[in-house]
């Protein structure tokens, strides 16, 4: 199988000013990663763990301090321009569209920059506009778009040249549930059709669950976990929690299948149940609870990435 990303001992240090002296901060520390063509990989870690630095080295923005990196079989810094034809990147916090130009003009400019011929351009732009439902705002300048619309346009812009590898840095940050869902569905369809390799950094476990079949966890620049999401939940117990407000004080709900009762508040009026998303669903847990007692209100909390990373780190020591 073709390797799309390969790093060996990849490291990057930054010199930062610290009072009068200077201090060396290691953002990425001897990272060894291998990603095969067609994989969908979630690259997760807390803020400042080195995710963005890694991505910038993968695409040739930053020069590594030590180690080797090959992206699509190329050295990113030396062969930046040819690599740019094979990789599409979305930085959630950066725009690669032209602020004052209508979306469709941005697409035309990018097509020209990537040297697509007229036929390719028409076909690909048409496909993206239809899939991401962008017809309604094509003629608006980018500055007038909502965040959800802009992110759709950004992703389309990054995918315009049909790259083999798509890197998404926080693509769903700030998006509402519906926009997130639409973006995820699009990415799944895109992968199924073109076999695109996906590397995704995110703080949203939902993104990882629905899009990725492999997870890399990075902590303080080092790889802390490499494997499936199920395995991750298994090792560190990244569980979701169902919080139910009940109609009357109830004894602890300890007999609900596939859950663990965590805590009761207000004499049993509010109870928290942890469950593993791999084994059951929130709906099933809720149904089981409702059989025993009347539920007035509920909320579900997602496992939080920082928590997961912290637990991995603790488990390693």
């Amino acid at each position, binding site marked *: 199988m073709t390797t799309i990303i390969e790093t060996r001992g990849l490291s990057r240090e930054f010199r930062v000013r610290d009072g009068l002296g200077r201090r060396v901060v290691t953002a990425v520390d001897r990272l060894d990663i291998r990603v095969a063509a067609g994989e969908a990989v979630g690259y997760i870690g807390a803020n400042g763990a080195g995710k963005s630095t890694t991505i910038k080295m993968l*695409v040739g923005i930053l020069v590594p301090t030590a180690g080797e990196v090959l992206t699509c079989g190329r050295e990113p810094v030396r062969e930046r321009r040819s690599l740019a034809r094979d*990789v599409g990147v979305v*930085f959630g916090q950066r725009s690669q569209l032209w602020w004052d130009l209508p979306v469709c003009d941005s697409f035309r400019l990018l097509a020209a920059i990537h040297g697509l011929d007229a036929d390719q351009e028409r076909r690909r732009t048409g496909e993206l506009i239809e899939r991401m439902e962008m017809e309604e705002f094509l003629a608006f300048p980018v500055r007038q778009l909502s965040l959800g619309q802009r992110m759709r346009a950004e992703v389309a812009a990054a995918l315009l040249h049909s790259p083999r590898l798509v890197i998404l840095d926080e693509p769903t940050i700030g998006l509402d549930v519906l926009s997130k869902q639409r973006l995820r569905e699009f990415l799944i369809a895109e992968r199924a059709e073109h076999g695109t390799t996906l590397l995704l950094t995110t703080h949203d476990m939902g993104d990882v669950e629905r899009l990725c079949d492999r997870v890399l966890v990075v902590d303080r620049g080092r790889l802390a976990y490499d494997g499936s999401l199920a395995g991750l939940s298994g090792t560190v117990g990244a569980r979701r929690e169902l919080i139910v407000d009940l109609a009357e004080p109830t004894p602890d709900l300890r007999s609900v299948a596939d859950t663990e009762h965590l805590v009761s508040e207000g004499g049993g009026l509010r109870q928290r149940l942890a469950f593993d998303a791999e084994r059951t669903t929130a709906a099933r847990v809720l149904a089981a609870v409702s059989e025993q007692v009347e539920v007035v209100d509920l909320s579900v909390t997602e496992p939080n990435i920082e928590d997961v990373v912290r637990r991995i780190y603790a488990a390693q020591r």
Partner: protein
Amino acid sequence: MDLASSLLVGLVELAEVWVLFQNVPRLGGVEFTQILLVFGLADFCFSMADLLFGHCDNLTTFVRAGTLDVFYLRPQPLLLQLITSDISLRRLARGAVGLGALVVGLVLNPIEWDLGAVVLLGLAVVSGLTVFSAQFVTAAGLQFFLINGSEMTNAFVYGGRYAASQPASVWSRPLKVAFGFFFPMAFVAYLPVIELLGLPGPQWLPSWFGWCAPLAALWACALAALSWRQGVRHYQGGGG
């Protein structure tokens, strides 16, 4: 509006030279009509270089906004993306002032128009344009190291323009080294002009150096390439 104000700036700078020569008939062995030629040549070359490469000044803004990261993601040369990010026509107005001064200077001065003179003038314009463009790129390369240092690099880019429009004969020795050779400003206008007019050159800068303007341009380009390359590799990303 922009067009008019930049035209005015150009004229004020020209007036400055005129006022100076109202008080002294000669400065550094050069008369007003002669300095007009130097000024015109330097200003025209600078304005054209500014039109083409002036956007290098905005590098810091692009670094801050993270736009530069996006430039790295496109399969085109970074420098090309930087200089084509915008184009300001107001810079044409500046060029008009320089061109005007140059034409008037050429008419007023007794120049023997043979093939040599035409070639010399052509070489001077092309080399001058190259030297100033290279200065912009050198400055941009340095910006990668001094994110807030555009004032400093502007000092030698715009200071260089000023230096180029003066007679190099009035410079002290350190200035001759700095703007005569390291940043080869004397080669942009002063040296070609004294060669064209058949005037003697000052110490260290004989008038036949006027023919060496292309060499100076090559040197400036080498400096620019070095600075830009180092800068691009030094880039630390715009955060995020």
